[in-house]
């Protein structure tokens, strides 16, 4: 048994407490950088120990916690969790570097960022459904404060909307988790919250509680699905996201888009796909997910096209990109599923660059309204360079990670969901459109004199963005380090569902 994961989670937790106690900005940010850096180091060691040719859980550890309720602290990673652990450990230190100049209550600011790292790492590694839920909820609280203390003018509204929306979704999910738990209890008569144990027993569920409207199995399935897609977020449950992003500070937006949204996608792979073949109406559920996926892609794209605020545009582009994850998962082809997982990883890196660009522009020019900007490339050459790279990656330029992910999803989903893929393809044109159009209006062209004197981003800001761009290109050219393990895990995941292809509408 190894202890990498508990160490990786414990260190930022200790770091967060230390950061809260620090008196000066210098101490707080140093604590944040060091502790998140150690987590990054541990995640790299984990990656080197991880065997990509094995599909099961690796590097697992179990600690006893509440035996009488069957709750254990059990952690482990497989091809679903490992890339996201790596992503979290890359994004948080870079966010800390990007936000190196934070002056408002820095001790709390960096402490909350570290708490976010604790939360997402816990979600991506917990194998106990109960502990999973605790971490799932832990993530909410620091984000609420990040928005409501460091946010923009309408921060109160945005923070509470974010909290209520995602909390209600979590509660619905909790009810479904309890239903799974008590189902397993009824079968085995022992309390056990182990995730795989609960998922396995779902197929044996014979509903003693039958309603006329919906079978209990489908109700549990939809409850879990609801919890995850609100977090992703998918249309029509996306309305909290633009508000939260517009009001959140840049670091908050980065964490929200790069890590918190990925929790929803993680849930799809970890929980929804294993349950899908055993629900009472799998065909309908697949259709439902495919519709949600395509709707998110198209609706997100068109909304992004219509935005005047650069950051809001990026927020809607996230919704659109996360639509590929749902679509790829619903297609149930090994490569479409691993493509969807890779889309999560890739979007996590790309969206950071986009939100950081918005933050730098806001800080320098004092506005993010696309129409009020213009020609800032002249005064912000460094920013323009990394921002352009980020935008090109986001629209799916070959050679960058986004291209591989979306190509895998679209190519492989076609086998099972041809109609939906053709619909999704329309989105690609407009995706390229809004990215280039926004760049053209905001960054290039003639300089808008009303902006006055503007300066380029600070070195630490540009540096963290540059690192992300390099990673995007690296994984675009050589995705195997993470893609292999995703494919290995995805293959057995969809094996049970192979017989379902015929029933898809």
């Amino acid at each position, binding site marked *: 048994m190894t202890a990498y994961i508990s160490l990786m989670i414990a260190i930022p937790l200790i770091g967060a407490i230390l950061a809260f106690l620090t008196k000066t900005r210098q101490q707080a940010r140093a604590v944040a950088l060091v502790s998140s850096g150690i987590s990054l180091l541990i995640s790299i060691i984990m990656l080197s120990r991880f065997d990509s040719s094995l599909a099961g859980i690796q590097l697992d550890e179990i600690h006893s916690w*509440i035996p009488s309720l069957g709750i254990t602290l059990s952690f482990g990673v497989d091809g679903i969790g490992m890339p996201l652990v790596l992503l979290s450990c890359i994004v948080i230190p870079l966010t800390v570097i990007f936000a190196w100049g934070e002056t408002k209550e820095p001790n709390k600011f960096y402490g909350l960022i570290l708490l976010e790292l604790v939360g997402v790492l816990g979600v991506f590694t917990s194998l106990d459904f109960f502990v999973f839920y*605790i971490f799932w909820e832990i993530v909410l609280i620091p984000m609420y404060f990040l928005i409501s203390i460091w946010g923009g003018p309408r921060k109160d509204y945005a923070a509470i909307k974010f909290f209520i929306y995602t909390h209600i979704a979590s509660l619905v999910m909790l009810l479904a988790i309890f239903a799974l738990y008590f189902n397993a209890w009824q079968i085995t008569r022992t309390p056990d919250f182990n995730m795989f144990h609960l998922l396995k027993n779902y197929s044996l569920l014979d509903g003693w509680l039958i309603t006329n409207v919906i079978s209990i199995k489908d109700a549990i399935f939809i409850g879990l699905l609801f919890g995850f897609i609100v977090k992703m977020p998918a249309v029509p449950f996306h309305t909290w996201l633009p508000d939260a992003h517009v009001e959140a500070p840049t670091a908050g937006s980065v964490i929200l888009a790069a890590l918190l949204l990925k929790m929803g996608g993680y849930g799809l792979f970890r929980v929804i796909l294993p349950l899908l073949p055993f629900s009472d109406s799998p065909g309908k559920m697949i259709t439902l997910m495919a519709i949600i996926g395509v709707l998110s892609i198209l609706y997100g794209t068109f909304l992004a096209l219509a935005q005047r605020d650069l950051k809001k545009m990026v927020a809607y582009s996230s919704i659109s990109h996360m639509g590929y994850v749902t679509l790829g998962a619903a297609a149930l082809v090994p490569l479409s599923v691993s493509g969807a997982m890779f889309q999560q990883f890739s979007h996590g890196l790309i969206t950071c660059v986009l939100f950081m660009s918005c933050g730098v522009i806001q800080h320098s020019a004092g506005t993010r309204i696309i129409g009020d900007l213009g020609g800032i490339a002249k005064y912000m050459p460094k920013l323009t360079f990394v921002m352009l790279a980020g935008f090109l990656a986001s629209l799916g330029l070959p050679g960058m990670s986004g291209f591989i992910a979306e190509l895998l999803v679209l190519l492989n989903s076609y086998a099972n969901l041809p109609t939906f893929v053709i619909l999704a393809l329309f989105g690609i044109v407009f995706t390229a459109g809004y990215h280039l159009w926004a760049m053209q209006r905001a960054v290039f062209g003639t300089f808008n004199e009303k902006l006055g004197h503007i300066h380029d981003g600070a070195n630490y800001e540009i540096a963290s963005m540059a690192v992300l761009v390099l990673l995007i290109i690296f994984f675009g050219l050589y995705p195997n380090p993470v893609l292999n393990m995703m494919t290995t895990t995805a293959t057995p995941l969809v094996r049970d569902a192979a017989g379902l292809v015929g029933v898809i509408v």
Partner: protein
Amino acid sequence: MSYVLLAPEILLTVLALAVILIGLLVSDKSKNILGYISAAGLAASLILTIAKTGEGSFFYNAIVVDPLSQIFKIIFLVVSLIAVIASIHYFKDNRNQDEYYTLILLATVGMMVVASANDLLALFVGFELASMSTYVLAGFEKKNPASLEAALKYFIIGSLSSALMLFGMSLVYGVSGSTNISEILTYFKTAQVSGLDILAMVFLVAGFGFKMALVPFHMWAPDTYEGSPTVVSSLLAAGSKKMGFVAAFRVLVLAMVAVRADIQIVFAILAVITMTYGNVVAISQKSIKRMLAYSSIAQAGYISLAFVVMTQMSIAGGVLLALGHAFMKGGAFIAVAVVGYMVLSDNKNTKNTDDISNFAGLGKRAPITALSLFVFFLALAGIPPSAGFIGKFVLFYSVTIQAVSTASTWLLVIVIIAILNSALSIYYYARVIRYMYVLPPVGEKIHEPLPYVIAMLLAVIGTIGIGLYPEPVINMAMNAASVLGV
């Protein structure tokens, strides 16, 4: 028969008498020392209670020492200890301190007697000792009209409930021919259910219901908790209220085996109404003490779920939630006392010191208090890892298990109502948290008095400690529940 098992009670009784005696001998100025003496005595008594192993029964089986009595004694001692430590500052330089500490110690002894009572008479005497002392404590700020109103209301309603209880007891005695709970149980196991049994039950449920502040017997609680000195509110809400529960556990669970089904329905309705009413009304409160009062009503509603299914696990869940509530609610009232101190040091003539507006920016003005209150609120809302969560979880878990095993839809509906209530309660706690951390402060940072800080930290350690390492406490509660043999 070894009376060593009763050492905690004996110690506190002697100490209470000693405190009033010392109060007569020393000057007004040196009366501050009485608080430290009382706190030390309570701590010693708590240690004795925890360390002591063994069971026994005393005085012709009227007083028993068993796991159930022990865990409730721990609850009462913890709450009194927290309240007394905080009182060291709250009643500093008050010349009636000797009476105050004597009363609080006697109230604790009364509660402990209730926890141990195995005879209806001992039970009643314990109730009265605790109630009489707390009537006076509630009105201890005798120049404050709100405090007097609180005391008077508490006294009248308390007397009424005692009368109801006593009448119920006398009916039980009349039917069964004994005041000893074990003998009453033997009688009820064999006897036919008569109309008189049901009547006795109604009076007992009403009597205990007043003490537990279940809706519709709750109306004294908000006014009393709001008007009493805040440290006394802490004792009332977190401690003396639990007397009703331990008495109900012993009397109702044991003796009413005969009329089991009816009692379950009664408590199901009471529990659902109580938790829903408490949570809904708490939302609109401006006074934090009132909000906490309604939240304790809601918590009493959750605890009453234990009576609905009456399994070993559900009673353990009720005991756990009662224990958690002692830490959370006790601590929360102390935090409100700190805010009161803070507001009064800004402006001596402030009327409503616990108004929510005074909590604005508390995170900056009194960081330790704000953080403690943050912990208590999240725990009260049932967010893990906290004592509040463990209690709620075991309780809801036991009811669901019962629902699943007996395929009973109405039990499941009750659990879902309870979970929704729990979700609803987050709203009003989060509102205060928003005031504390998001809104700008309205005054300078204050120096938080040490006694308050110690009291709150004790409560925080209890709240989080049970949440992080619940296994021993769960086992303790399961043992306590096994005493009832359900």
